[in-house]
């Protein structure tokens, strides 16, 4: 039995990549080396690497401008330099050690409280970069102001503002209110899943909560006054309940606020239904589950398919379905499985399109070993024909085939953070850069005649405010002209098969809908395809020119929420992604020509004169800027103390400290505690450990020294006093985000004085272990649901002083999860471990308890050999329940059920019996990090198996056992 603090240190002896409770977990892989520098401005220390210096300076200008504005807005300042850590793209950002957590693709940046660091990735769009900087700085100011308010009034024990408010305000004051936010709230209101403020705990931490928070802040500003948002922070000291703070500030509490807000939303949103529709009511539904996006049409050998990306089962995959006559989920084929192997670590589900050519080849992008790769895959055979990665390009989006099918155009973001269009020629293996600037160029699409590429870009003058317009690039010369113009977002253009029209998404009238623009026949001539059905070709618009003379602009859909990624198909339909009911699904509109004919023509965009593209912001006050190479300085992260009182072991107390550098690449841990029960024992019972961890390189290393001493107890050995002191070193090398190799070396003096059951130990032990670990599991509410994980380990322990100990340890833990349904899975585990050699009987494995052999007392079965086979059917039990009190409520997420069957045992010399348990379990996830477990069932044993196994040897214990504990499913 181990002491809690000792268990903590044991955890420290394994690297932070190991997952608590078990030793699995994915890896954060440092693929790239960053030569960190610091740009010091008046209010910021900006950490960046030289390749992205220009971007860092732009970010610095954004940050200083935001700082000045927020000082005025908050009536507050930050008196120390704010550390901003920039990454030029999201894949680099995922490698940061500022947080130990793995970063998901959807995370746009974060602010952490220990050192007040703000970590921000760029993504190719300067406006997005600006928005995230603003958003995070609102957090910094809000945190400082709230802290100050509570400290001034000596109410530091009062709660900070709730998460819906902090995130909602950061978004509202960071970006304001745009089409995207409007889309979410419209959908939530009309589809009926909007959660009232008084019940916000039900959706705590979700994206919906963030958007509702933004909407609530907007309503408070419009109804009560913008200044009330700041007053809510100023008045935090007035009550520990934010509802009461709201009442004292606005005059209404949560419930009263809900009445006003919900009524306001209904009044504002429902009338929109007069002239607009929910997508599912007026278009054909093609998919229903998960998130399904980025459709592309493929016609090959008479077979017509729709290929798209979806996370309907949890993992992201690329699917295909019949274009016509689709009869449901049975006809969905998985073309590429994602998130399980290092070839397809992730697809950019919401940002990167895919495309299929006439040869039945699919071009798509997947993250693979630190960078994005373009794959060329034969749809018919699922064979990967080619995999492309480029030295200078880190992230890639939306590859699109040329009409000839031998080139792809795509968006690439390079190491410096610049987003540009590139063309890759497969036969010639040549990469050509089509644009070369800081503007964000996206969603390129080749015209049917192969001479032009239409794309979306923020290079128009209003682009600095986040607007995107459509442009046409003549491939041969690189000349770029406007197709649309205005302060709105025009995205994802797609050509009609005859090349006469372009369909695209636009929020120009407040919501994302599908629009078409056509070049009138009398103005231009067209070519339909390279086969030359019609022999004319579109002329690029003369520049500058008035767009309204050249285009016929029409709104094809009138959705209340949003439509994206339109794809024109040969049968005159448009397939697109619609947002509805908090989900993205594929929809189809047939007979689009007719819809265009009947749709009212809208005034085309007007462009007079030659608009100047916007310029990148510059830092002013050059005298206050300095630039130098990053030097590590360590500061305290955590300092905490603890006193334990145990009826058997008495009182112990201690403290632990953690230090790290600004980038989190080097960490120091110090642990000190004492378990003495009298003055004379103080020195003898001193426990201390020092550990250094290096995470800055791909191979993570840790080493340290320790001295542990105290009285312990376990059921095998009874009470004993043990002293262990020595040192350790370990290295963990990630082979990919799923697999790693670990080596541990430990030398220690071990002295054990037993008080009864077992013998003394005294030796100088050297242990070496080597492990291979893999984890690509997909997690549900209480544990893994899909995928597999394993850990195989071999080691040796040798007493180099005496000759009493020299044994080998082998351990294998394999777990596989079979997905039977959306929330149902079958889990199987096989675990075995053994010690072989001299002295091995004194080093045992323990089992029993809720984490392995269930229904047996925890760690009461031991031996130098152990095996366990667990089978478990996991299924949903109760999806959600909430308990509402007059003063508030608690929300519980899913309660899941399990039927389990375990067999195993531990032994020293001979396995004579097999123990088992079977029964039913319930798991409740609480607070997002704790799973409570309850198991009930029967134990059984198979005795005398050395005589052979017969079913009648299975003896069930007549009693029913039940156990309540905590922990994730295996």
């Amino acid at each position: 039995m181990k002491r809690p603090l000792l268990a903590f240190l044991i955890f420290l002896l394994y690297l932070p990549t190991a997952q608590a409770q078990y030793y699995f977990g994915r890896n954060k892989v440092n693929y790239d080396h960053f030569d960190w520098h610091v740009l010091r401005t008046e209010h910021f220390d900006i950490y960046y690497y030289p390749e992205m210096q220009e971007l860092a300076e732009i970010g610095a200008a954004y940050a200083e401008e935001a700082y000045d504005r927020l000082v005025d807005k908050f009536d507050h300042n930050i008196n120390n330099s704010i550390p901003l850590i920039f990454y030029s793209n999201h894949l680099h950002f995922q490698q940061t050690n500022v947080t130990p957590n793995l970063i998901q693709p959807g995370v746009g940046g974060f602010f952490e409280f220990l050192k007040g660091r703000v970590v921000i990735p760029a993504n190719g769009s300067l406006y997005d970069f600006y928005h995230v900087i603003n958003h995070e700085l609102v957090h910094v100011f809000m945190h400082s102001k709230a802290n100050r308010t509570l400290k001034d009034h000596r109410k530091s024990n009062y709660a900070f503002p709730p998460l819906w408010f902090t995130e909602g305000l950061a978004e509202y004051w960071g970006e304001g209110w745009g089409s995207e936010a409007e889309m979410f709230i419209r959908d939530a209101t009309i589809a009926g899943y909007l959660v009232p403020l008084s019940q916000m705990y039900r959706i705590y931490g979700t994206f919906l909560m963030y958007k509702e928070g933004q909407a609530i802040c907007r309503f408070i500003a419009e109804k009560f006054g913008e200044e009330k948002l700041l007053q809510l922070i100023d008045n935090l000291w007035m009550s520990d309940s934010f509802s009461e703070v709201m009442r004292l500030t606005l005059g209404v509490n949560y419930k009263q606020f809900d009445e006003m807000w919900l009524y306001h939303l209904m009044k504002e949103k429902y009338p929109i239904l007069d002239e607009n529709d929910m997508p599912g009511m007026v278009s054909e539904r093609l998919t229903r589950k998960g998130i399904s996006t980025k459709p592309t049409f493929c016609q090959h050998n008479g077979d017509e398919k729709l290929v798209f990306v979806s996370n309907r089962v949890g993992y992201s995959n690329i699917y295909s379905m019949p274009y016509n006559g689709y009869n449901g989920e049975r006809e969905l084929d998985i073309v590429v499985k994602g998130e399980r192997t290092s070839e397809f670590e992730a697809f950019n589900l919401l940002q990167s399109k895919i495309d299929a050519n006439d040869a039945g080849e699919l071009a798509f992008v997947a993250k693979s070993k630190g960078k994005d790769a373009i794959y060329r895959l034969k749809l018919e055979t699922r064979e990967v024909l080619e995999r492309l990665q480029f030295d200078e390009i880190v992230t890639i989006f939306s590859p699109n085939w040329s009409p000839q099918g031998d080139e792809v155009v795509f968006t690439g973001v390079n190491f410096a953070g610049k987003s540009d269009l590139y063309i890759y020629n497969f036969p010639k293996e040549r990469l050509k850069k089509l644009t070369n600037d800081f503007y964000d160029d996206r969603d390129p699409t080749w015209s049917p005649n192969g001479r032009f590429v239409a794309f979306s870009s923020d290079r128009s003058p209003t682009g600095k405010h986040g607007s995107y317009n459509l442009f046409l690039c003549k491939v041969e010369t690189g000349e770029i002209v406007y197709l649309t113009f205005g302060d709105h977002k025009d995205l994802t253009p797609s050509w009609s098969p005859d090349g006469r029209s372009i369909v695209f998404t636009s929020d120009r009238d407040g919501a994302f809908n599908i629009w078409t623009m056509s070049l009138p026949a009398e103005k231009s001539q067209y070519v339909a395809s390279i086969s030359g059905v019609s022999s004319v070709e579109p002329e690029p618009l003369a520049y500058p020119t008035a767009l309204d003379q050249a285009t016929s602009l029409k709104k094809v859909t009138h959705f209340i929420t949003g439509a994206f990624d339109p794809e024109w198909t040969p049968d005159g339909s448009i397939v697109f992604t619609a947002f509805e009911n908090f989900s993205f699904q594929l929809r189809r509109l047939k007979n689009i020509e007719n819809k265009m004919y009947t749709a009212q023509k809208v005034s085309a965009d007007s462009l007079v004169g030659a608009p100047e593209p916007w310029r990148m912001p510059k830092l002013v006050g050059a005298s206050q800027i300095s630039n130098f190479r990053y030097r590590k300085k360590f500061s305290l992260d955590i300092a905490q103390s603890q006193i334990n009182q145990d009826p058997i072991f008495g009182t112990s107390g201690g403290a632990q400290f953690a230090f790290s550098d600004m980038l989190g690449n080097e960490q120091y841990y110090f642990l000190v505690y004492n378990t003495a029960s009298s003055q004379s024992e103080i020195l003898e019972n001193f426990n201390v450990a020092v550990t250094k961890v290096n995470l800055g390189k791909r191979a993570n290393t840790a080493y340290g020294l320790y001295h542990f001493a105290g009285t312990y107890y376990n059921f095998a050995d009874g009470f004993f006093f043990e002293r262990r002191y020595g040192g350790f070193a370990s290295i963990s090398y990630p082979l990919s985000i799923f697999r790693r190799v670990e080596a541990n070396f430990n030398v220690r003096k071990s002295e054990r004085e037993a008080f009864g059951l077992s013998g003394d130990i005294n030796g100088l032990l050297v242990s070496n272990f080597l492990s291979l670990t893999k984890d690509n599991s997909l997690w549900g509410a209480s544990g893994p649901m899909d995928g597999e994980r394993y850990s195989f380990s071999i080691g040796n322990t040798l007493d180099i002083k005496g000759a009493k100990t020299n044994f080998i340890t082998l351990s294998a833990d394999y777990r596989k999860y079979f997905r039977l349904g959306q929330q149902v899975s079958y889990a199987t585990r096989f675990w075995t471990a053994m010690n072989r050699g001299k002295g091995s009987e004194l080093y045992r494995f323990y089992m029993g308890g809720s984490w392995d052999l269930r229904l047996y007392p925890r760690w009461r079965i031991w031996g130098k050999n152990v095996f366990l086979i667990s089978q478990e059917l996991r299924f949903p039990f109760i999806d959600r329940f909430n308990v509402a009190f007059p003063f508030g409520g608690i929300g519980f997420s899913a309660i899941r059920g399990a039927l389990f069957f375990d067999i195993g045992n531990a032994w020293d010399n001979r396995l004579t019996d097999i123990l088992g348990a079977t029964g039913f379990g319930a798991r409740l996830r609480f607070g997002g990090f704790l799973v409570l477990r309850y198991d009930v069932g029967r134990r059984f044993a198979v005795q005398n198996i050395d005589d052979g196994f017969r079913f009648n040897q299975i003896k069930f214990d007549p009693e029913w056992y039940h156990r309540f504990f905590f922990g994730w499913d295996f």
Partner: protein
Amino acid sequence: MHKKLFFSLLILFFFACGAFRPHLSENAEQTSWLGVGGNLQQHHFRANGPAPPLELIDTISLSAAPVENLVALDSTIFIATKNGRIYGYHLRDGKVKGKIKLPENVVGNLGLHASGRLAVGLEIGSETLMCYDLHDGNFVWKVRAGLLASEPVVADTSVYMVARFKHVDRYSLQTGKRIWRFETESQAHAAPTLSDRELFFGTDSGELYALDRHTGAKIWHRELSSPIFASPVVDDNLVFVSAQDSTIRAFTRADGKPAWQIKAQARGWRTPALAANVLVVATGDGIIRGIEKQTGKKIWRHEAPSGIGTSPLIVGGVVYFGCLDKNVYALDVSSGKLLWQAELRGRVRTNPIAIGDFLIVGSEDKYIYIFRQGHELSVR
């Protein structure tokens, strides 16, 4: 024996703490600062007082951050803290003379009468307006007046207050009886400003009111386009307002007609200061301006390193103000030239006041700083 001595000392201590016993000296104006702004018109002005360079002679450690405004009577400064304490510190003796503990540890803002009656307005609670007699060491009355976000203003025998939730009241200083109430459309946060006839205040929805101070009747009101968080400043003919829409305005006192306005680049969080012909206004971007009061014409402009945390204080020819960069600064009132600065421990949020040749200012790090006219230049 020891027990008796202890309890005697304890009684003496409380007795001493409770009663400050100030008396009106001959030169009351020089030894007192009775309310926000130093006078009813909130000019934040003294004709005579400390001139830079100043030297720091004492600091007072408090149990929590001080509130925005200090008051003083007969060289005793009264400092309210944000955890519901009121300290009395005597400038000449250099000692804390006593402490008053407010109910429920709630922050109270202070207004002072020359007779030694201290009006205390609480930001939350039930009996939110109370009167403390400094001579007797007792609360003489307490009333339910609504939540007060600002200082009660004591004038003659009345207490005027603006309540957060939409009313302005006049109470009798003697009895605590309400004399009149004026209801507003929206919340109000800043202390009212008085003249001999009128009472002026602004609201969160941007309304500027002029009431008859004696009867509570509305004389005029104007609607600005943005909230007013700073108190108006009143002159013989004009009323000056600095609002959240970054605009500084002047209205004629008699009927509220717009006289002039100028646009700044940031919000007006602080009440301006007024001296002779110069209106000194600070905005949220750290800019402090000297403006000709009759015309609104800019005389000078000074950029502080960070946001300005206090109202300016004009003492003779010097403007003092506190900044969020933890410094207190002194400028020449006619040119805006920097004359002196001193660094404190925390952001400076307590409006400086001048008593005799002392300058007193507070920082959010729970300290009050006492400066006195010194001999050495200490510009940094």
